[in-house]
């Protein structure tokens, strides 16, 4: 079954799905629970979910995601095995997925082979690879594009204007604005500069501009949605991942904030 990859509409214009992208570590605490979380996200009609594939050396992640990665790191959650696992899940129980992990796992599988298999699955919209820099991406962007897999571009507070413009132009799916300097899970403080930068990025692209890193409460989601198209919630949700009851509560809080923030 092949679905054609979608391009994300700008969420604030017209009818669009709730602008929340939760980050879920595959296999934390086990794949059954991950499937449950994905099914919930699909039911809520979320635009996308970032599904994290554990990698042994997560250099861009803070303590919470590092620990979740260590918990879930095993042969069962290797990239190829996750693709096989996804192929067994009924389509309606899967939200559109962005696979998030470090470049070595794609490189090891072979970028072309990964793209072919991901495309065949249909549920994989794209990939988020924190350590594939814009420069090194030159070698791989074409392959992702040819297979209709969106390679998401990152912009950070240290990115210069000209560089940001180039990154946004080459980005596919959405634009990931890293709201803070540091690793995942540090505390984000929204500043005038955050607003200004996101506003600028939105002028340069039709893609949704989403803010991630350090978003820890529903109130923060609402605040960010005043100027951004979407929010990515990572560490705060991953923190509760081992406890499904708690995770669902936290998820609901972010979900209603996102629905409210969009309105």
């Amino acid at each position, binding site marked *: 079954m092949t679905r054609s990859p979608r391009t994300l509409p700008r969420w604030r214009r017209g009818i669009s799905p709730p602008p929340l992208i939760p980050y879920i570590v595959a296999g934390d605490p086990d794949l059954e629970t991950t499937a449950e979380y994905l099914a919930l996200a699909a039911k809520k009609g979320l635009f996308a979910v970032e599904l994290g594939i554990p990698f042994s050396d997560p250099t861009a992640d803070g303590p919470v995601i590092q620990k979740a990665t260590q918990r879930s790191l095993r042969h069962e959650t290797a990239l190829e095995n996750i693709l096989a696992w996804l192929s067994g899940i009924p389509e309606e129980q899967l939200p559109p997925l962005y696979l998030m992990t470090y470049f070595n796992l794609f*490189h090891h599988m072979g970028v072309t082979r990964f793209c072919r298999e991901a495309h065949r699955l249909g549920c994989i919209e794209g990939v988020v690879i924190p*350590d594939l820099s814009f420069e090194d991406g030159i070698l791989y962007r074409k392959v992702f594009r040819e297979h209709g897999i969106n390679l998401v571009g990152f912009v950070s507070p240290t990115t210069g204007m000209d560089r940001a413009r180039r990154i946004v132009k080459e980005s596919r799916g959405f634009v990931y604005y890293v709201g803070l300097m540091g690793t995942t899970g540090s505390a984000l403080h929204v500043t005038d500069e955050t607003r200004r930068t996101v506003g600028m990025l939105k002028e340069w692209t039709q893609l949704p501009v989403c803010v991630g890193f350090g978003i820890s409460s529903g109130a923060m989601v609402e605040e960010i949605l005043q100027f951004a198209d979407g929010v990515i919630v990572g560490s705060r949700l991953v923190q509760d991942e081992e406890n499904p009851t708690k995770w669902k509560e936290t998820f609901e809080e972010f979900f209603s904030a996102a629905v409210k923030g969009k309105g």
Partner: protein
Amino acid sequence: MKGESAIKSRQGRGTSPLPDVRGYFGEFGGRFVSETLMSALLDLDRSFKKAWRESAFRKEFREILADYSGRPTPLYFARSLTQEMGGAAIWLKREDLNHTGAHKITNAVGQALLARRMGKTRLIAETGAGQHGVATATVAARFGFDCRVYMGSEDIRRQALNVFRMKLLGSEVCPVDLGGKTLKDAISEALRDWSRTVQTTHYLLGTAFGPHPFPLMVRTFQSVIGQEARRQMLSREGRLPDALVACVGGGSNAIGLFHPFIDDPSVRMYGIEAGGRSISPGDHAARFAGGSIGVLQGTRTYVLQNPDGQIENTHSVSAGLDYSAVGPELSYFRDSGRISFDWVGDDEALEAFQTLSRTEGIIPALESSHAVAYGLRLARTMSRDRLIIINLSGRGDKDVVEVSRLLEQKEGTS
């Protein structure tokens, strides 16, 4: 007109120097880091290239190396050792005589000068054996930087002396309790710190590894080893050496010795990795024996990884060689055939540690003992009129406690 001038400029350039503008040595290298670090790396690349073009910068670098670190280090003919082996003449490049006890200080001085120019006020570093940590703490004291050194908790245990030295020098030593608790995990933690503090902090990476421009910059600073050795050998023996031997963790002492000889086809080069207990996963750090091409901590290079693409932990008796990946330039010269690689296990390295101590009165670092062990093997296969240079990258004071523990353990089991 346009075409002609293009050809002319190509001819003027000769063979294009490596790395290329994107930081690649052939297919190895690059800048596989998060976007937050990119502006710092681009800035570092520009600042380094500009500084290195200035004779005033190079002069200050050379002067500090001379007055503060004691360069040039001697090239010493190991007469007794040579006689005992009965083969090629063995010469030792005495990097162990540098201030702080290893070649690491050279790179630390170079990068500290650069960090000062760039207006940074804080240094961070990773360390395995502690030699690079001590070198960084030393230049931090000398130039007035705040300094924090990340070190795996397993390495903190086996290199207690160096931990104390760093603290004495005014640096903070931050234990890393993740993964194998060794060098790889310390680098990850340093990268995380840097992404939080990049505007005020310079990451003083200790080896010819990581994202561009580190492999280029560290090699450039450390090439003083090979430049001196070349000059010294020519003045002592009137000719170039036949073989060079150096141990390879990340590879900075090796590329530093080798690079000035790369275009001398008669000089053979041997990089020696840590064979640990055996060449099976988790038991060694011989990337060229058990590894494959991957991407780790900013660079595309040979990496020890499992069939799922997860990075494997390593083992070596020497903390400084205990690392899952290797500098990209060495990967390039390995695949091109210019540099040969082999490995030496824990036991053979320990033996060489004792042999050199007994025959020459020089206690080598456990890292350098791997090069010594291979150099001895090589010398026996070569005729007496041949010349070998072994890079004695560091001294063994830091290792004596660990070695005495290991030797007692051995006696206990035998």
